């Protein structure tokens, strides 16, 4: 079995500064152009109605447009056609900016879905009939149970299980991962082929396991598109709140007119519409859906496929992270940490012998022993090329080398080496061997004995290798108040050591995969949201039960179906990044909502005095910004209201700056930036716009 290729996905450094994936190069000119076209189509009222805040602006635009054509539509008015026309243009721009933000956020997903569709449309397969004859058919005609042959440079036409042949397959069309994967029959992980991937060497014969329309490629297309359409729970709640605020402002503005009439203050309907649009939370209303889409988009660029935005949002809420030891916390390889000589042997002798014993050992452990002993000064000896290597086997539980000078060097499980020494060489185990060997597991490591011609020289201590940077990640998770639980089949001693080294909060040892479900339920019963990763079929129930289940693409189909997130790079540590993405999505929404509502204060001070300047001249005292004329005041507020949307699009798409820190610190900072900033910024912005446009009106 070939070693699993290491993931080459580039992870954004989660730590001190999490800004998501870099924006550079993310948006091509083509995307901007597509977004421009998409934004115009979104003027359709059937689209607008889904966003109540912007729908109100859209209706307001129609009203002012009618007033531009006929200024006295709602009774005598001193507003000129030109003024009403300018208001109409600014309102239409406001709607357009919102459309544009959404279209831009959607663009990348659409492009991805489009390219996947292209791939699907071109699929053809070579079906091997029962009589052995082959026929070429479109992929849509392949059914479960069909036998298909693919040769070098063919694109796999359907999902299936390899039954014959060995070949390298490039899965980059699906996973974005260009390193080829070896496919062969009879393994759990490496026997399945996915439609859309390309065979780059040799040939394969596989049995189709799913009907057309249900392949992983179909599912991917569906997910890429559907995930963007569904609103997440918090997004729905926020939409409700914003809609009700909008409704309140509709009431507020609508009731101004009768009162003004009673006070014999003539007001322009265009001004009322302007006031309404300025007050309703257009900033967040315009960017809300873009934020959600961008959040899913960010997970997609992390090469994680989300079944829904809900899963991404839930990731931000996760309180307990269940992590498999192997593959997530440790690399799955073990390294030689220590060399412990026995019975008066020298350490150098032991190290050199261990080096020779591992010379032909291709297992990761063997390579690591070579690396460690080389670092301690071991060197090859002459004649090695004529030596004979003995591969490790589960039966003998040892490996080694037979040197040309007749020395027989073995390395393996302590009991196996001792057994061989007694049996083959009549040697007795050194007196202190047992003692030293027994001490090793207590430190969470595995002892390997090394012998020359049955004489045991000492113990090589093999320890699990932590993934680089894993303890920093755990520390960050702790700062984000995510509890980490490591699960492993190891004994409690080993588990404890690794848990301590990696810095996880808790561990469960000697766990069978099917017990994971129990663990998930247990954590959930304490009111916690649980996330876990998994790849095996027996992980599937737990993945389905977890609030966030991240399946590895290299995993089995049941696991992938049970999970709500699929990592195409098969890198379980990404779960920690998803927590950050989910939280960032919520933070961005909250921050822009605060900003949007705080903005209203300044807009009131711009528009209210302007509206009543003639009937209630005393209210001029409320014109604290000293805006030039009533017209310039209303227009400045409206223009500010419109311009703030495109100015904030990059923020909405990129997400608010976010550090791993306590809620309190985060809250305080965002309160300063978006709360106080939201109060002050429009006073400055409106004044500046007024200074610019005053000479024109």
């Amino acid at each position: 079995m070939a070693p699993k290729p290491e993931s080459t996905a580039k992870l954004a450094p989660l730590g001190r500064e999490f800004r998501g994936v870099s924006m550079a190069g993310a948006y091509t000119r083509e995307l901007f152009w597509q977004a421009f076209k998409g934004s115009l189509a979104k003027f359709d009222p059937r689209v607008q109605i889904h966003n109540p805040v912007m729908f109100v602006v859209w209706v307001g635009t129609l009203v002012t447009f009618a007033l531009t054509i006929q200024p006295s539509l709602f009774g005598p008015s001193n507003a000129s056609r030109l003024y009403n026309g300018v208001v109409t243009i600014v309102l239409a721009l406001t709607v357009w900016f919102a459309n544009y933000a959404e279209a831009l956020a959607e663009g990348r997903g659409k492009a991805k879905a489009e390219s996947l569709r292209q791939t699907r449309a071109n699929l053809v397969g070579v079906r091997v009939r029962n009589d052995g004859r082959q026929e070429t058919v479109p992929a849509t005609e392949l059914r479960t149970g069909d036998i298909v042959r693919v040769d070098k440079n063919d694109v796999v036409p359907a999902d299936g299980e390899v039954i014959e042949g060995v070949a390298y397959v490039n899965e980059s069309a699906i996973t974005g991962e260009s390193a080829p994967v070896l496919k062969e029959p009879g393994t759990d992980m490496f026997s399945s082929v996915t439609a859309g991937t390309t065979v780059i060497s040799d040939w394969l014969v596989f049995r189709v396991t799913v009907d057309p329309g249900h392949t992983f490629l179909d599912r991917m297309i569906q997910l890429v598109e559907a995930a963007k359409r569904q609103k997440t729970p918090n997004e729905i709640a926020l939409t409700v709140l914003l809609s009700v605020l909008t409704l309140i402002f509709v009431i507020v503005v609508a009731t101004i007119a009768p009162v003004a009439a009673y006070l014999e203050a003539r007001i322009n309907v265009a001004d009322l519409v302007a006031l309404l649009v300025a007050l309703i939370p257009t900033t967040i209303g315009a960017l809300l859906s873009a934020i959600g889409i961008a959040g899913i988009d960010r997970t997609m660029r992390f090469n994680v496929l989300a079944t829904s935005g809900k899963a991404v949002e839930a990731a931000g809420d996760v309180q307990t992270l269940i992590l498999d030891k192997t593959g997530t916390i440790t690399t799955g390889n073990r390294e030689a940490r220590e060399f412990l000589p026995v019975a008066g042997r020298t350490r150098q002798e032991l190290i050199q012998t261990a080096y020779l014993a591992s010379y032909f050992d291709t297992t990761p452990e063997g390579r690591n022993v070579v690396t460690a002993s080389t670092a301690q000064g071991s060197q090859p000896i002459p004649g090695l090329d004529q030596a004979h290597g003995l591969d490790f086997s589960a039966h003998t539980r040892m490996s080694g080398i037979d040197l040309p000078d007749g020395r027989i060097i073995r390395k393996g499980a302590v009991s196996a080496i001792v057994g061989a020494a007694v049996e083959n060489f009549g040697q007795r185990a050194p007196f202190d061997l047992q003692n030293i060997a027994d001490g090793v597991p207590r430190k969470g490591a595995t002892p390997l004995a090394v012998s020359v011609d049955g004489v045991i020289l000492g113990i090589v201590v093999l320890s699990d290798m932590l993934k680089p940077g894993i303890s920093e990640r755990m520390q960050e998770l702790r700062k984000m108040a995510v509890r980490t639980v490591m699960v492993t089949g190891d004994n409690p001693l080993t588990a404890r050591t690794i848990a301590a080294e990696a810095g996880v909060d808790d561990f469960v040892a000697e766990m069978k995969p099917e017990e994971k479900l129990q663990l998930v339920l247990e954590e959930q019963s304490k009111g916690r949201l649980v996330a876990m990763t998994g790849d095996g079929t027996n992980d599937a129930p737990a993945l389905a039960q977890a609030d966030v289940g991240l399946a590895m693409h290299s995993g089995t189909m049941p696991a992938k179906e049970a999970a709500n997130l699929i990592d195409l790079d098969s890198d379980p540590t990404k779960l920690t990044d998803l927590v950050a993405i989910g939280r960032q999505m919520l933070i961005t929404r909250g921050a822009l909502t605060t900003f949007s509502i705080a903005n209203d204060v300044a807009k009131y001070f711009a528009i209210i005095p302007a509206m009543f300047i003639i009937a209630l001249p005393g209210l001029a005292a409320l014109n604290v910004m000293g805006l030039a004329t009533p017209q310039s005041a209303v227009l400045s507020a409206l223009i500010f209201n419109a311009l703030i949307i495109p100015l904030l699009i990059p923020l909405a798409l990129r997400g608010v700056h976010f550090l791993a820190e306590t809620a309190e610190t985060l809250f305080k900072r965002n309160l300063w930036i978006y709360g106080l900033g939201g109060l002050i910024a429009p006073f400055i912005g409106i004044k500046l716009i007024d200074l610019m446009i005053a000479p024109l009106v």
Partner: protein
Amino acid sequence: MSAQAWLQIILTLLAIFLVSIPLGRYMARIVMGRPTKLDRIFDPIDNAIYFLIGRRVAAQAMTWRTYTVHMLVTNLAMAIIIYLVLSFQNWLPLNQLNFPAVDPLLAFNTTISFVTNTNWQAYGGESTLSNFSQMGAITFAMFTSATTGFVVAMAWIRAFTVRNGGADLGNFYRDFIRFITRVLMPICFLVALFMIAQGAVQTFDASIVAHTLQGGDQTMVVGPVASQGTIELIGTNGGGFYNANAAHPFQNPTPLTNIVLIVLMASLPASIIVTFGEMIGNRRQAWVLYGVLGTLLVLFLLLCVVPEQHGTPMLANAGVDMQASTDQPGGNMEGKEVRFGISASGLFAAITTAFTTGAVNSAHDSYTPLPGITMIGQMMLQCVFGGKGVGFLNALIYGLIAVFVAGLMVGRTPQFLGKKIEKQEIILVSLALLIHPLVILTATAWSVLAPYALSSLANNSIHGYEEILYAFSSSAANNGSAFAGLNANTPWFNLATASVILFGRYPPIIFLMAVAGSVARKPTTPATTATLRTDTVSFGVFWFATILIVGALTFFPALVLGPIAEFFAMRNGQVF
């Protein structure tokens, strides 16, 4: 303002604060069913009542639906009783002055008004109601309506203390009875005795005849004034025996009783915050809320008292001395009792609108414009402590919205007291938030367009608009005080205010009880460092800003066209 005026205000606020702590803790014991020293006296009384209404009913655990339905049915039953008493008072005893039956529309308005703790009085008490009606309809309703608001708030708080998915919000009848017998009754009894000792009237007689110095006879209406005047304030009701309410010397005889009354009307709504802290087991959270509401109160209070002392430019130009001195109070004394002066009147006006009581000891119509912002504004927010229970719930509407937005800002699904605030809660809270501006603004807008409404006005233009705005704000906030200057006993205003009262009272309560039901079913999520704590100063600031900004944004235009426009006009020498 004089040092004595400042001292009076500071001491009054301090007294409210000091009373609220032990009282709030005592109420928490009552609500949570913990033993108190007074159990030996009250247990037999309560048990007798439970026996009367059926022990099973009084013991069953109630979900939010059952609790709300029992509350509504009880309210309806009481409304029917009140309406019947008013409509048949000419057949009922203690009608020595032979008042006729109350006109149906007025009786309807009064019934709605009193069963909802609004106590908007479109009638003059001493010229309309028999002593039996005053006791059997008015005083009775003032106990039960205050209790209704209180128990709803308590049931609501319980929802947050229910651990892991229970739906039990307590038992309506048990809460209702225990609050009346163990809190309201004892306090009222003691305070009424004090009022009588100070000179308030308490008798079954209906009138006394006084021989005036000029040699004429003057008939003065008397009755069970002290008992009614006590619950009127303790229950944040405001339905006075006399039309002059707390300005009447028979009800509010001395400056000492004036201060006691102010402390009384503020004490229970302030205590509820303390009770809240005890019930959720987090006093810090309660103090944060107390701080938010207290700050609002002080700000509004200053806005009410200080400008009043400055009077108006017209008065100053006319040579009136605005400085308070030992000889005269200075400032704008129009519409105020000479016994109380500026600060005690302003203090009363600010407190009665803050705690949505509605009792008055001065004519609110006659204040300078800025105090108008205090009075109308506090009723628009209706959570500057607010009425009993309901004010607390209103503060929590803003609180939950603040929790939601702040929670998003730290990147977690928002939670309050360990319960997640999600779609369902936000929908209900938003609807509750919507009702108040909806009823006030639409009723006002309708009235300023309707000739049959405008004919009730004593003033035109801005001040006339303010009178209408005040009336509907007062109705919607279950305050019940009147700006005066508005003839409220007309078919339009009787119907319109009654409708505004009903819509302002029950739908928000039902929405909030539904929130309670939804919250109670949720598991309690353990707090971590990533959970936004709501018992911190920074969250308090955000809560404060949410109340001010969301509230002010909603009502700012309405206030601009009223008191604010009037203020700027006054500075330009124009009056309305």
